[in-house]
């Protein structure tokens, strides 16, 4: 019988991984075990999404979540899962790699796709900062794969009345890592991943005050403002939650408008799934134009206000 495991510190991601596990399992007989942070309700939700057994974890108040690693190793040695999918948060990636080392297993980080082919597992991931895609074959089990949120869809056959077992997983005692303090990040009111239109700002803006033009455009479009990495990390003009790129936010909006962004590989990776990409830059050779659907070569100070006006005009006409 095929056994799949899912481990995630974010419950929502575990439901998406369940969708993938159910798809891979198909008609085969199998058991899917989910390890997640949550309570009975979360556990029941996971069962509805396709889990057979749920093992509830906690975010331990006095140590790190990754301290579950040795317990999971024991469980894996006993139950011999074929595949372990781990939610690719920072905690998840740390735990997955430790688990892989302790089980002497292969581990593939942030997979974009996972398929079976003739008894082997074929996985896809991105390398060189987003420049290339690597297809990997793995025929050693268990294969561990980390997967970012929103990579896979939840199980469409969700059934709230599905039955399964919920248990608690205990932490090992006597750990050497102590949490002194946890400071949660001030909650952003909006998540730019949810925005259907995003205006991204880059180094083409010469001062912070000019960002207002992008904010106005975003406002009339009902969208959000995001940025490239230097705007957040070097200049601190926008919070880090708003920078787009392979190591930041990966977004899939309907429309992405790159304003004054040159188009480095790492940034482009974060927008490649946008439905439509629009670019504005004064440098006609900017690499961003090569990945844009529509572009305007010109000065931001001229183009952005013109776009804002045009949006108002077209929206007014739509209503009329």
């Amino acid at each position, binding site marked *: 019988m095929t056994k799949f495991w899912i481990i995630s510190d974010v419950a929502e991601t575990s439901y998406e991984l369940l969708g993938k596990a159910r798809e891979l399992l198909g008609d085969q007989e199998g058991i899917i075990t989910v390890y997640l942070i949550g309570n009975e309700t979360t556990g029941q939700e996971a069962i509805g999404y396709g889990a057979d057994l749920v093992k509830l974890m906690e975010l331990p108040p006095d140590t*790190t979540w*990754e301290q579950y690693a040795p317990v999971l190793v024991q469980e894996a040695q006993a139950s011999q899962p074929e595949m372990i999918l781990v939610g690719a*948060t*920072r905690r998840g*990636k*740390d*735990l*997955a*790699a*430790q688990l*892989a*080392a302790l089980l002497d*297993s*292969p*581990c593939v*980080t942030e997979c974009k796709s996972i398929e079976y082919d003739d008894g082997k597992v074929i996985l896809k991931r*991105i390398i*060189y*900062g*987003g*420049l*290339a895609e*690597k*297809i*990997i*074959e*793995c025929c*050693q089990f268990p294969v561990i794969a980390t997967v970012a949120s929103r990579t896979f869809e939840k199980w469409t056959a969700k059934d709230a009345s599905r039955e399964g077992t919920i248990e608690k997983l205990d932490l090992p005692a006597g750990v*050497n*890592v*102590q*949490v*002194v*303090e*946890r*400071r*949660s*990040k001030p909650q952003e009111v909006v998540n730019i991943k949810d925005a259907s239109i995003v205006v991204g700002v880059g180094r083409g803006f010469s001062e912070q005050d000019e960002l207002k033009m992008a904010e106005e455009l975003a406002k009339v*479009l009902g969208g959000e403002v995001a940025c490239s990495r230097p705007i957040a*990390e070097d200049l601190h003009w926008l919070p880090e939650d708003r920078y787009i790129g392979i190591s930041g936010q990966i977004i899939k909006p309907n429309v992405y408008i790159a304003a004054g962004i040159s188009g480095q*590989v790492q940034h*482009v990776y974060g927008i490649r799934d946008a439905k*439509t990409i*629009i670019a504005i830059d004064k440098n006609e050779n900017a690499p961003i*134009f090569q*990945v*844009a*659907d*529509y*572009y*305007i*070569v*010109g000065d931001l100070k001229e183009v952005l206000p*013109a*776009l804002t*006006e*045009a*949006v108002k*005009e*077209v929206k007014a006409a739509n209503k009329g």
Partner: protein
Amino acid sequence: MKKVVACYKWVIDEADIRVEEKDHSLNFERAKYKISEYDRNAIEAGALLNEEKGCEFLAVTCGPNVEASLKDVLSRGPASISYVNEEWLADVDSSVTSKILAGIIKKIGNVDLVICGEGSSDDYSQQVGPRLAALLGYASVTFVNKLDITEEGIKVERKLEDGVEVLEVKGPAVVTVLPDINKPRIPSLKQILAAKKKPTEKISLKEIGFDINASQPKLKTLSISGTVMERKNMQINTDGLSIKDAALKLVKQLNADGSLA
């Protein structure tokens, strides 16, 4: 005196790689090597612990042609480098790399703190740090942007998706560091000259008891292809169209595509 080791990877500079349009293959002709970006932060963190806390600071690496990296790295602070240089390491996965690095670190002996970058510039698998911790039996603390060494161990802050964790670790640890932990130095002429006199140690697989047959890569690369996006690449302000008219044309196009709803 605490002993600190930084691990680094000598990688192809991804900015030099060209994607061939005809078959999406990668062209490495112009590619130069560099110290993997975040490993510069790891080396800098070690150098600072040496300068500010008097720790002994060494570097380790493994890979093909890593000898070309030694002088550059030595000018950034470590007292010496221990390395494994093997051609076949060009296409190995994190499981192999971490076993070799763990072997070198065990050979050095009595290492209190291992520092790695959060991930490499090429593969960015982000596994070597935590794998090393597991193999060495050290605590794993990843994504650190503040690091201090204490009598009993270390005190760190790690940056996670939902906030910051401040941690104290008793005993030896492996940390991976984020780029905002420090600003890697540009070595001075004096540091560059001093690097020439620093020792390096080439280590054989045999010396670290690495069994090449028992530790084959677990993953096989089937293909690597440049990502190419199918986009319309349509310039709106052509044929002398004014910015104002181009803006209107663009917005009408978006409206027609149903993108404004």
